[in-house]
């Protein structure tokens, strides 16, 4: 059988490869990659209901066999997503990056359910860059916004149902019976006359049939896989070291590259001495290279990571700072504070006249630091360029959230057409947004290094690797952000007016996303969670987007990382100052929002809040927030030990409509909770001094560890409605739930993250 991605052969090879005999075998397996597309399609086509290669070319070639099929969009073509081998093995192409969130299993579950596949014979692969794999809502290939299941649920169901219909049709023709006499179950076609066949036996005939334009989908009571706690397909490989990540990819003759980057964003090389670097054994080449955002750097090309690292350590580079002012967190704070007292761009209208005559006012300023995503697998990409003329092609193996944006960016740098750039999506060791850069920064840098390498007359494949220090200092942070709320309360404790000002650098201005997400100058990602709050509140929001010379980016749950904290801690303060129970006040303000109420009530009921007595020194903290169309509530039990909050228990409830895989939903909520706990810990911040990032690795940039993980129960509100986001929504309400418990214990509201204690 031919695999859509020949590279997958290498998982086994590399595992066995030992002491040098692997390279040739890998080169051989890799050779299939450069075979021409037409030849590949032919081969793949011969092996069953086929395909799933790269791009529209393959889809079109396959689609042309059926007349209806030509009218169906690429994302409606089963043959781009599904391969059924003669042995009945089903291989599903997943149009998303898998970086921990579980859509590799989840989308396979969805398609396999409508296909009536035998789950024990289902495999899933990550699709390469290609039109068929674009997000059906956004029109680019992407993994983000907690959209993987949300936006592809119906798409994958229809794909499975279409393929099933084609198999049934093929069997009906072969057996000369009516389709209505054939049913399907666990990968088999069964006729009422007693005949039956495995999907594998009919797949070739089915492939030759037209793709049906419309199909009937199952009703929820017919689901066999959707909504079931299915085990992840990638768990065995990930428990035994067999899972390949981008970092593990190899090509014959490959060199490893580390780049010396400027210590300032946008800095450049004034000059360098590479004599000592070149003297390091294993260092092959040292090249000045152009980098992201007009910076320049020095690339060290070597045989393996360690010589590249030692070579880089031995470089002497004189850096030139950019002409603009060097960012400094202290100065930024002062600049942002000055803006807080001025009205910004209007993001939500509201009557603030009630502030003047209010019986009481609350004025609260909040501060949130830059945060690095720091996924466990540092960024990396393997690039290879070969062939001449029309056969010229570039292959990139990397874990990316933005394949088609990367493809276009790399093509422009290497002066190729996008379809000449083949992005082979690799499993990634986390990302949290960092692998979705509108500038394609790390892949653009990789392409620029390759360009310099080619200009030097070389052509070996290059693996460009970031160290942890490169990652922590590399920018694209959650923006440093401040908020000011001025709230006027009436005699009855009711909220009479609320003036809200946000100061946050825009993530999206100047990017391709500006047209969609920036309106009247307001970057939606800076005000989300407040400007669109579900609470019935007279809140007026304005925002300033100061220009800051630090690259910023979406960081798991984006603007909600700060807006939920502000909103949820203020609701607690309003409740406590008005002598009301914080849960009861939330219920009152959310009475028109049944999903919010359902999540809140479930978490509260399961936690024992208000019923279970707590030992002295402990307090409850509650928060609820909607993001990515799901609602999550957390109830925590907390005490303060030394300078750290100590969580004794967390009870979470999520309303994400239909939970395609409850195990995955639980894991995502746990992971989001832990990541949010991380934001409260001392040292969880990136600071800059005179343009230089002060942190560099996990010893000075705090990440949460095993003792920081509390016992946690995750509950899911039952629903049959189409699924909403899961990867991010667990995060926003967690830090404020902690802060609210701290407030209950200390009487001092918390106004910043990390939480200053002790």
């Amino acid at each position, binding site marked *: 059988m031919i695999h859509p991605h020949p590279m997958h052969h290498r998982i086994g090879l*590399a595992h066995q490869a030992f002491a040098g005999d692997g390279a040739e075998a890998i080169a051989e397996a890799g050779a299939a990659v450069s075979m021409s597309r037409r030849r590949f399609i032919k081969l793949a086509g011969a092996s069953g209901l086929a395909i799933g290669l790269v791009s529209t070319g393959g889809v079109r070639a396959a689609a042309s066999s059926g007349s209806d099929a030509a009218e169906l969009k690429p994302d409606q073509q089963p043959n781009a997503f599904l391969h059924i081998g003669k042995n009945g093995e089903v291989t599903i192409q997943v149009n998303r990056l898998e970086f921990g969130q*579980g859509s590799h299993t989840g989308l396979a579950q969805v398609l396999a359910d409508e296909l009536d596949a035998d789950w024990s014979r289902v495999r899933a692969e990550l699709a390469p860059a290609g039109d068929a794999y674009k997000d059906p809502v956004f029109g680019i290939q992407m993994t983000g916004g907690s959209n993987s299941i949300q936006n592809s649920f119906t798409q994958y169901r229809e794909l499975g149902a279409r393929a099933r219909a084609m198999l049934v049709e093929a069997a009906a023709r072969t057996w000369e019976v009516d389709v209505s006499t054939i049913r399907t179950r666990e990968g088999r076609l069964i006729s009422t006359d007693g005949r039956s066949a495995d999907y594998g036996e009919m797949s070739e005939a089915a492939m030759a049939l037209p793709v049906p334009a419309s199909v009937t989908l199952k009703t929820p009571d017919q689901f066999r896989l959707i909504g079931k706690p299915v085990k*992840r397909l990638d768990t065995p490989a990930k428990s035994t070291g067999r*899972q390949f990540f981008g970092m593990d990819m190899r090509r014959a003759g490959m060199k*490893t590259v580390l780049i010396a980057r400027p210590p300032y964003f946008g800095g450049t090389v004034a000059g360098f001495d590479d004599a000592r670097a070149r003297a390091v054994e294993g260092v092959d080449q040292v090249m000045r290279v152009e980098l992201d955002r007009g910076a320049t750097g020095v690339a060290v090309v070597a045989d393996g990571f360690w010589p590249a690292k030692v070579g880089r350590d031995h470089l002497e580079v004189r850096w030139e700072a950019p002409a603009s002012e060097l960012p400094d967190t202290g100065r930024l704070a002062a600049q942002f504070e000055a803006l807080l007292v001025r009205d910004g761009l209007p993001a939500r209208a509201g009557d603030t006249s009630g502030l003047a005559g209010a019986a009481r006012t609350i004025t609260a300023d909040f501060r949130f630091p830059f945060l690095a995503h720091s*996924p*466990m697998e540092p960024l990396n990409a393997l690039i290879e360029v070969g062939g001449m003329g029309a056969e010229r092609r570039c292959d990139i193996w990397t874990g990316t959230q933005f394949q088609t944006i990367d493809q276009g960016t790399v093509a422009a740098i290497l002066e190729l057409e996008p379809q000449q750039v083949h992005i082979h999506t690799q499993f990634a060791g986390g990302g949290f947004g960092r692998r979705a850069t509108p500038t394609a920064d790390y892949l653009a840098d990789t392409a620029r290094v390759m360009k310099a390498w080619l200009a030097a007359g070389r052509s070996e494949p290059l693996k460009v690797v970031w160290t942890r220090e490169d990652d922590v200092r590399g920018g694209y942070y959650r923006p440093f952000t401040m908020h000011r709320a001025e709230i006027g309360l009436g005699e009855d404790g009711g909220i009479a007016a609320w003036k809200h000002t946000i100061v946050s650098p825009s993530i999206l201005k100047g990017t391709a996303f500006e047209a969609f997400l920036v309106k009247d100058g307001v970057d939606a990602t800076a005000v989300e969670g407040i400007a669109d709050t579900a609470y019935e509140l007279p809140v007026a929001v304005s925002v300033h987007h100061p220009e800051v010379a630090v690259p910023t980016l979406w960081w798991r749950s984006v603007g909600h990382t700060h807006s939920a904290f502000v909103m949820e801690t203020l609701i607690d303060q309003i409740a406590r100052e008005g002598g009301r129970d914080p849960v009861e006040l939330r219920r009152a303000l959310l009475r028109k929002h049944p999903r919010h109420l359902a999540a809140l009530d479930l978490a509260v009921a399961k936690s024992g809040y208000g019923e279970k007595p707590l030992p002295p020194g402990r307090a409850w903290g509650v928060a609820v927030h909607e993001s990515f169309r799901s609602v999550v509530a957390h109830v925590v039990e907390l005490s303060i030990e030394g300078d750290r909050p100590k969580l004794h228990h967390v009870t979470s409830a999520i309303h994400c409509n239909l939970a395609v895989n409850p195990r995955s939903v639980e*894991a995502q909520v746990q992971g989001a909770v832990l990541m949010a706990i991380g934001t409260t810990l001392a040292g969880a911040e990136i600071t800059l001094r005179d343009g230089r990032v002060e942190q560099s690795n996990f010893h000075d940039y705090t990440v949460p*560890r095993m003792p920081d993980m509390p016992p946690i129960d995750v509950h899911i509100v039952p629903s049959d409605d189409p699924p909403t986001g899961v990867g991010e929504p667990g995060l926003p309400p967690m830090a404020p739930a902690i802060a609210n418990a701290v407030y209950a214990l200390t009487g001092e509201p918390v106004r910043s993250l990390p939480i200053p204690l002790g």
Partner: protein
Amino acid sequence: MTRFNVNGNDVSVDVGDSTPLLWVLRDSLELTGTKYGCGMAQCGACTVHLNGRPVRSCVTPVSAVEGAAVVTIEQVGDGRIGAAVQEAWMQHDVPQCGYCQSGQVMSAVALLADNAAPTDADIDAAMVGNVCRCGTYARIRAAIKAAAARLA
């Protein structure tokens, strides 16, 4: 030339003495199950067993393993404890992105080799050096306890 044993195979590698074992495993021996996460003993992704003890291979110079026996994630499942831990990992669907998990498994196996019935505090102490950015800690804890129960 440094000679040592990896996963039952005698190997000799010709790299500088100060080259960390991690890069010898990954780049010279193509055993990529052992991961790079920080390079300074801060994350545990690179954990292997050296003569049965867990070490961070990113800060272990290859010269220090001359004549020693190294076991990596590729082989740890051959042992009774390793097999039980990996089985528990699969039962609990511990991994998310999976990148930290080789190191987590190696640390968990070392813990159970020392301590057949670890308490929560024992687990905290043994696993605090293994970072998981995805937040799989709750399931790691449950899987370690399940493996301990199975081995008892």
